[in-house]
């Protein structure tokens, strides 16, 4: 992915409504808990 398109993607994500960002955070947390389980 080129730098410009990465930046554009980040800009679009930053412009999402608060609750949509939180839905993504929830997915990130779920993924992180999976990593933690694997690490144990």
């Amino acid at each position, binding site marked *: 992915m080129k730098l410009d398109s990465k930046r554009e993607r980040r800009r679009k994500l930053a412009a999402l409504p608060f609750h949509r960002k939180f839905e993504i955070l929830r997915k990130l947390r779920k993924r*992180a808990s999976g990593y933690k389980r694997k690490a144990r």
Partner: protein
Amino acid sequence: MEAALKVLNELEREGVVERYAIGGGVATLFYTEPIFTEDLDIFVILPADTGQLVSLTPLYEALNQKGYRPQKEFVVIAGEYVQFLPAYSDLVVDAVKDAKEVRYQDTLTRVVSVEHLIAIALETGRPKDNVRIAYLLEEAEVNRPFLLFILGRYGLRDKWEKFLYRYEQ
């Protein structure tokens, strides 16, 4: 998250806290793309903040009555690990008072301004705070004159110059 915010609004309506605002990682993601954070940091101005010792006991008792119990430094509210941080400096008090009202679906809440968020991170000064400042400077729309005004008001200008010197290396 919305359920947790409703509980926070209830606490404010009931006078258990005078005013609250979201800080930390969740406030950061409000201004940037979503980033990982485990907890929800809530700065609170407590009713007893006028000269008396600050105690979180009345807040924890009110939460206990609602069925939310502490787990280590957090209180789990509707699945969210909420950390209550009494406004510990003039800067944080100012940040809570100046926090902007935002909507989370149907619920109103408050988020510390990005300029205050940077100033608080600078005041705290841990390595992860410096990373957060650099990230916010790159990703968020920061009102630089307002940031400099806050930094000047709370004696953080020297620290800021040192941060910028390191950051620009």
